């Protein structure tokens, strides 16, 4: 049996497959179908210092071979998460990556501070696609200097490894990756949704503006991983349009150490356990000892 385990920030994960933030609820909802500990780690829904209501509906819209969401970051807040859901992961001894965001720099810092180190929390994933209300709503993740400073401040506020999750809607994602690295980021998650919009031609109205996810994103994600890996020496978690284990292979070969599956779970609720199973089978069948050997295999 090939070895699926990967080392992330000095934690051995039993496999390199996680859910993408915001696509597996609070972790408990999927349990009637499969056990959350099937994955190497669970990534929380985006959490903030205070609870957030989120946007009115429609919040999801199908596009050709993908979807657009505009959930608006509804969440119960970081405190309630720890109170209501952390015991569930403790009981399972399940590694958790906490995805978090803020609408101001201070909210990010305060939120990071409120996440007390815990043996199961292996990383803080900063959602940098969030709009900065003090800067006119432009997202934090677009300006290298702002990214460097924000991550630097977050790093000073926590001992937990910090993962910068980048938006693809930028001039040059490697510049942002470098700024994140200079700010002290321990890893990157590439990529968040790609902003898009959709019109209902019958109603003659915009139906949704939000983030596009699903298979359409994959080429953009692969390019981002390729370019950032050349630029910075920190581990990359890949995300964007992964539907099956073959997609994973592309992400590993492009240089990802671990991957996240989002939208695929909506299409097939068993997508994640299937991917883990198929990945192991593939390695066995093709004589690979470990998934680690795949990482960066296409980058020579």
């Amino acid at each position, binding site marked *: 049996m090939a070895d699926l385990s990967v080392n992330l920030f000095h934690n051995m994960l039993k496999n390199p497959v996680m859910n993408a933030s915001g696509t597996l609820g609070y972790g408990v*909802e999927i349990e009637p179908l499969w056990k959350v500990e099937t994955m190497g780690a669970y990534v929380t829904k985006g959490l903030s210092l205070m609870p957030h209501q989120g946007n009115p509906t429609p919040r999801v819209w199908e596009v050709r071979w993908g979807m657009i969401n505009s959930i608006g970051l509804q969440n119960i807040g970081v405190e309630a998460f720890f109170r209501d859901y952390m015991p569930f992961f403790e009981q399972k001894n399940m590694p958790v990556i906490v995805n978090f965001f803020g609408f101001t720099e201070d909210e990010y810092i305060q939120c990071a501070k409120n996440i007390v180190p815990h043996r199961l929390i292996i990383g803080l994933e900063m959602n940098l696609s969030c709009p900065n209300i003090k800067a006119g709503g432009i997202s934090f993740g677009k300006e290298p200097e702002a990214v460097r400073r924000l991550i630097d401040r977050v790093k000073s506020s926590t001992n937990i490894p910090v993962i910068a999750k980048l938006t693809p809607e930028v001039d040059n994602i490697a510049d942002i990756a470098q700024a994140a690295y200079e700010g002290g980021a321990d890893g990157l998650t590439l990529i968040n949704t790609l902003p898009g919009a959709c019109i209902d031609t019958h109603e003659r109205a915009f139906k949704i503006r939000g983030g596009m996810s*699903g298979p359409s994103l994959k080429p953009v994600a692969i390019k981002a991983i390729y370019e950032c890996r050349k630029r910075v020496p920190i581990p990359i978690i890949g995300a964007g349009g992964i539907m099956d284990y073959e997609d994973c292979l592309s992400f590993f070969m492009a240089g990802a150490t671990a991957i996240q599956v989002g939208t695929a779970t*909506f299409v097939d609720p068993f997508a994640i356990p299937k991917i883990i199973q198929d990945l192991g089978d593939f390695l066995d069948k093709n004589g690979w000892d470990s998934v680690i050997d795949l990482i960066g295999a296409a980058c020579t």
Partner: protein
Amino acid sequence: MDDIEAKIITNRNIVKDYFLLRLRLARPLGTVVPGQFVMLKIPGNTVFLRRPFSIYDYKRDVMSIMYKVKGSGTLALSNAVKGDSTMVLGPLGRGFNIYNKPNHIVVAGGIGIAGVHLLIKKIKANAHVFYGCTDEKELLLLNDLKMQDKYISTIDGSYGYKGNVIDLFRTRLKDYNARDTQVYACGPEGMLKGLKHALESHRAPCQVLVEERMACGLGLCFGCVKKTLDEKEPYKRVCKEGPVFNLWQICL
């Protein structure tokens, strides 16, 4: 709850844009509460996300849904034929709570009948059904349903009361004592609004089945929310906390 392979037995056009789809499931569904739904994969490869449909009827390994063609997904579904494979995830959500009351009133409009069909079947001896549709032809949607009392409205007046079902309901409302009555409803947003208005002073307990666009159907994405009067977390997931809500707790 499970994700179950299924094959189409029949996919029959009932009237106009309305279809009845019967599926043979590879495994039984588990206990179904009226008002629960399934996420159905649309056969073929043109539709990306699954679509939510109320469980119209269910017995052992045969499940049916009744649907109306609205957009690309239901259009593609209407083209599926006997033998086509699909996947059925369910039963999902919280269905209707059937309390022991003398009067069970069911109010449904259009395709909303699909959401209360199983409920009516269950409480048939006590069911007072108010059903509104466009014209006489759509009465075919009531199919073989048995019930105690049936009140019909059609928009064009071709059968029963001429007008919408809420206006018809209003004419009868005084017959029911709020304390002895449980109202169940399913239909377009406008109908539910009208119902709320109609019951404003009467205040009978009322459960409504609401619809919202869904991605997962499992409570994972928070895409399908309905605004409620809950102050702490107003947006509740239709697929998880719903699709049946207390009429007096949601914003319409």
